């Protein structure tokens, strides 16, 4: 038989049998069988009792089989049987179905004579070695794979197969040779394929399994040990299991059996834990820039590949399986992997370990796609508490840690934000924005306002540092795009933009930026607009499944102010506020010259009480959770480092805190106007003090410009009444009362003043709300505080930060959109807006530029370096074949962070402006679905 299996192929045999009529085949088959039976009976101790050897006699293992042997079978007889069987099997395989799906005559004979079972018993009678098993497995594999008529419907075929499988299940895995395992999995896989094609067989398998006693649904149970196996055996086993999973989705009995009587789900989930434990606890970080595991990283780590295989299998199972299996599996993953394994791993001893775990978590979330599995991971992050602190809060607090833990944490949040998950965004951002405490009361009605005239975009772009202004440094043109601002052809009107591609690169005149008119246009801005449009519309579509629009009305702010929030904080997120002890209060950039500061600024004795309190509890909590268990020494070190940084900043911080308190004390009207907008000026003021001697004129002019802008901004705030007219469609009225529309309401004579939300009208609410500080949440605060350090951040940190903020800027929800992109909003004094932070960065860059004569050259060189970087990155993906990579003439060292930051900052402003502009169109389009 072995030789047959090894050498025989279907094609050869078909040729042999072609043209031979079925009756001849039948006769040959019967003859062969008669010969076989002779030999079989000669060695059968019980002769006639063929059927009595059924399952009841413990066919479970090789060990007990010796008792059936009746003396050794002579070799020549064994090989004779083998030869006959070989031929018989081919005849059976090649037989066509009878009429109307009836059995062919050979199959009928096989069934009648119980041929296969008798052969199985014969093989048991001899030494039931691995070779024997292998032979039998291959025989069935071939039969099932190649037979032309369905065989498995017939119990005399099915039963010996099940007996064979049973015998395989009895031996503990490991004792069987890998060849047997390979063959077994192959056969099981093949059986599952048959099941998938013909679900009616499933029932048969199921009940035949029952006949076999304990090993219910044998195929399935046999596959389970191979779930986490590496290599092709594991893959085949997982594929086969997936087929059964898909079947079980339709078959309640099978689903119930899997959930209740098998260890499938626990094995799968705890297997993840096992595989996780063999992952490297510390990764070799290739470079300082590294912040997340890319494909090329994890492919180098076989253990990680294996883990991801199993995780992806879980994902696939959840996708296809019956809900009961799915629910059980996610439950085991949560309780058997995430909570007992991943949570402690996220709180490991050393910075490197924690960073590694964070990178793993990020990779895992990127690797899964099934909502139910994502739900499990996300609810773990959002709701699970380790040492009484939510995982999410711990992760957020780590954004501000030094070294790579901070950037790896940022990368994780980039992944989370990219999921467009309402629950995540709720906990990270919206929870803090819903009460609208961060803004002046009067501003709530302005929340949903449309920026019709690109006022915010203009304000962002106006923050472009003078050294980066396109008029000072002509930005090189991308592929020599040029923009034509054309006058209309017939002269009766002005034309509009047209973009032309100058296709020939050699076209020297293409370098000219000004075509057709005096207006210079920044071509790259078109790309930003296009990208912004894509991001926003993508995000808008994704957010259609959300439960609320987060527009300042739904959810209603009133319901979530103070009491509700407090309650929620106490019950669900204790210590959230307290954990927020990062730089969000240090309004001043950290790079101020400390000596000068100490000279020029009187340091207040004490920071305000509530801040002290906040700081103290924060440090207590953070330290508490680590120091109590002394093994967490290294994390304490991390936090101490941050604390030191804090202390270093404290001079600046304290001054700012002092200012904010003063603000709150000053009379309401004054403070409420200036609060939202004062910081850029204040900072400029303080900056100016630092660098007055050298750059007075420049700073002065800038200050005037800023001042003018401030005045203008205040002016702009007087006219948001357009929302009223936007809100009500007049056409509703028109149908009934065509004549009643008062067009005078559109004319300027109508007094509009009373409709305006007056920035003077509201008092700071601090008095009524005790010491509660309006707060946009730890996540936004920490992002902005890191952004404020842009000039000293490394390039890749800035890329991550601006990337995440750009992701956030794509969200259409008015609460977030207005916070990030509406430069006219007036926020509470303690709340820093993105605009304020950017203004601070601008001033830092201006100062760097003023202090360094080489700055313009460095800027240009840095631009070139970044372009080279981009083109090399893009070259990796594909695209530019003809273009050689750009080699920058001078390489600006990466430690010149302020130079790179200046380039990036300028581009980021364009990106934000583009988002603001596209929102003014897209976010206001009525959705049709």
């Amino acid at each position, binding site marked *: 038989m072995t030789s047959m299996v090894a050498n025989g192929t279907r094609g050869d045999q078909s040729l042999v049998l072609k043209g031979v009529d079925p009756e001849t085949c039948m006769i040959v088959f019967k003859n062969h069988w008669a010969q076989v039976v002779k030999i079989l009976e000669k060695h059968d101790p019980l002769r006639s009792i063929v059927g009595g050897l059924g399952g009841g006699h413990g066919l479970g293992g090789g060990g007990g089989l010796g008792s059936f042997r009746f003396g050794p079978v002579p070799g020549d007889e064994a090989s004779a049987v083998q030869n006959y069987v070989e031929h018989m099997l081919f005849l059976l395989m090649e037989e066509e179905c009878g009429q109307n799906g009836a059995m062919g005559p050979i199959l009928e004979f096989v069934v009648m004579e119980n041929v296969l079972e008798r052969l199985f018993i014969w093989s048991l009678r001899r030494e039931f070695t691995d070779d024997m098993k292998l032979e039998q497995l291959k025989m069935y594999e071939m039969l099932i794979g190649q037979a032309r008529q369905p065989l498995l419907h017939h119990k005399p075929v099915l039963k010996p197969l099940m007996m064979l499988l049973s015998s395989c299940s009895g031996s503990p895995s490991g004792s069987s040779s890998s060849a047997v395992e390979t063959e077994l999995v192959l056969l099981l896989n093949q059986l599952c394929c048959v099941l998938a094609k013909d679900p009616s067989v499933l029932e048969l398998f199921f009940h035949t399994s029952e006949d076999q006693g304990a090993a219910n649904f044998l195929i399935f149970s046999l596959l389970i040990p191979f779930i986490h196996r590496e290599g092709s055996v594991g893959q085949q086993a997982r594929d086969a299991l997936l087929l059964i999973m898909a079947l079980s989705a339709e078959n309640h009995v099978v689903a119930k059996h899997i959930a209740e009587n098998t260890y499938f789900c626990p094995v799968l989930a705890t297997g993840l834990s096992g595989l996780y434990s063999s992952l490297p606890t510390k990764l070799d970080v290739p470079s300082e820039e590294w912040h997340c595991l890319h494909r090329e990283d994890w492919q180098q780590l076989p253990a990680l590949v294996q883990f991801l295989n199993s995780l992806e299998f879980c994902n696939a199972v959840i996708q296809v399986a019956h809900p009961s299996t799915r629910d059980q599996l996610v439950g085991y993953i949560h309780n058997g992997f995430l909570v007992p394994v991943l949570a402690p791993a996220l709180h490991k001893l050393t910075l490197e370990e924690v960073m590694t775990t964070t990178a793993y978590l990020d990779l895992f979330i990127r690797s899964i796609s099934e909502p139910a599995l994502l739900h499990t991971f996300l609810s773990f992050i959002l709701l699970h508490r380790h040492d009484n602190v939510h995982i999410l809060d711990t992760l957020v607090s780590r954004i501000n840690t030094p070294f790579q833990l901070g950037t790896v944490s940022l990368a994780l949040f980039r992944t989370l934000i990219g999921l467009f998950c309402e629950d995540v965004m709720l906990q990270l951002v919206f929870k803090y924005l819903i009460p609208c405490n961060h803004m002046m009361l009067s501003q709530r009605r302005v929340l949903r306002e449309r*920026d019709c005239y690109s006022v915010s975009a203009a304000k962002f772009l106006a923050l472009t540092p003078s050294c980066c202004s396109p*008029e000072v440094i002509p930005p*090189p043109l991308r592929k020599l795009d040029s923009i034509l601002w054309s006058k*209309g052809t017939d002269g009766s009107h002005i034309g509009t933009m047209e*973009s032309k*591609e100058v296709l020939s690169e050699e076209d*020297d005149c293409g370098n000219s930026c000004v075509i057709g008119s005096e207006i210079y246009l920044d071509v790259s801005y078109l790309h930003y607009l296009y990208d912004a449009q894509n991001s926003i519309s993508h995000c808008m579509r994704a957010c259609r499944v959300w439960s609320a629009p987060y527009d300042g009305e739904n959810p209603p702010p009133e319901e979530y102010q103070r009491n509700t929030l407090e309650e929620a904080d106490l019950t669900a997120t204790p210590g959230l506020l307290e954990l927020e002890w990062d730089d969000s209060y240090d309004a001043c950039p950290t790079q101020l010259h400390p000596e000068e500061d100490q000279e020029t600024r009187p340091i207040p004795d004490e920071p305000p009480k509530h801040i002290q309190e906040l700081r103290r509890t924060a440090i207590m909590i953070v330290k508490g959770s680590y120091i109590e268990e002394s093994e967490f020494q290294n994390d304490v070190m991390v936090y101490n480092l941050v604390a030191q940084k804090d202390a270093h900043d404290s001079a600046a911080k304290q001054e700012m805190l002092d200012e904010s308190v003063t603000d709150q004390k000053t009379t309401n009207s004054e403070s409420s106007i200036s609060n939202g907008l004062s910081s850029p000026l204040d900072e400029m003021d303080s900056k100016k003090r630092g660098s007055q001697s050298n750059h007075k004129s420049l700073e002065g002019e800038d200050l005037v410009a800023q001042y003018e802008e401030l005045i203008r901004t205040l002016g702009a705030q007087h006219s948001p009444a357009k929302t009223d007219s936007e809100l009500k469609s007049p*056409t509703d009225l028109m149908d009934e009362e065509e004549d009643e529309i008062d067009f005078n309401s*559109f004319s300027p004579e109508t007094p509009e003043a009373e409709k305006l939300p007056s920035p003077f009208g509201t008092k700071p609410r601090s008095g009524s709300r005790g010491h509660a500080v309006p707060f946009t949440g730890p996540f936004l605060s920490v992002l902005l505080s890191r952004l404020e350090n842009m000039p000293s951040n490394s390039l890749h940190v800035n890329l991550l930060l601006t990337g995440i903020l750009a992701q956030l800027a794509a969200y259409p929800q008015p609460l977030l959109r207005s916070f990030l992109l509406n430069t006219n909003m007036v926020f509470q004094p303690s709340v820093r807006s993105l605009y304020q932070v950017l203004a601070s960065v601008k001033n830092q860059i201006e100062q760097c530029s003023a202090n360094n004569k080489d700055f313009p050259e460095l800027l240009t060189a840095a*631009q070139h370096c970044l372009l080279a970087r981009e083109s090399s990155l893009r070259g990796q993906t594909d695209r530019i074949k003809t273009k050689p990579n750009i080699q920058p003439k001078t390489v600006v060292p990466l430690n010149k962070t302020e130079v790179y930051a200046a380039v990036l900052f300028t581009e980021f402003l364009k990106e934000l402006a583009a988002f603001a502009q596209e929102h003014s169109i897209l976010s206001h389009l009525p959705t049709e679905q």
Partner: protein
Amino acid sequence: MNPFWSMSTNAGRKRSDGEEQVGQGEQKSSPARPSFGKKQLPSIPKNAVPITKAASPAPSTQSANGTHASYGPFYLEYSLLAEFTLVIKQKLPGIYVQPSYRSALMWFGVIFIRHGLYQDGVFKFTVYIPDNYPDGDCPRVVFDTPVFHPLVDPVSGAGVRRAFTKWRRNHNHIWQVLMYARTVFYKINTMDPLNPEAAVLYDKDIQLFKSKVVDSVKLCNSHLFDQPKIDDPYAISFSPWNPAVHEEAKEKMFAHKRRPEDYNKGLPVSGLSWVKPGSTQPFSKEDNPLQT
């Protein structure tokens, strides 16, 4: 497909058909980006020719409104796009409008009058928007054929301006102009007429006025199939019903209203939410997979 949608998304990025073919790959399709590819930097010119303006000192580059003049066209373009989306939002009955191909400052429109003295009138018009919008005058509405009306100039076809003596940004919007243009055909007003004859007739001899209106409507409608006055790919032109051309388009219009992006972008993107409506607790939906 609602033509407005295609307009609203294309208006900012017009190209001729030929350019569309060539240019699309380069500009329309977002180039493959590295994970941080968001920051787009312009490429380096081989021999960067100094820009004539480069020498000008930085402060002068700040225009009056504190921003770089170079972005002015973008602001104008988006202001007009915003106006256009406002028009869409209003769903003004019987009014259709689309910006011209050549300029966002010129919009083509048509009004269908469904009852009243001007019933069955189909009036094509053009809206001219001043290039210092929104700080300029009221956009002008000019009818292609000067319909007989007290507020429509019998020679130039200009009309409607009266209601907006002073144009105020934030308060006045182009949809208001369009709505006004429609309303004057339902509610005749003879104050400050541009066509004194019509005004006098309306007040003194309403029967003659009515018959003149009927003639005028007939005249306008008889020119309906004329070539558009302004040669522009996006000008509104009418043609007699031709089943071969129009039947399919009509079916499409009635079949589904989907935004063009939904056609193009393949698989539907979906975000995630397990927040129960009315709650602000994460994972508050009841049909959660249970976890104990």
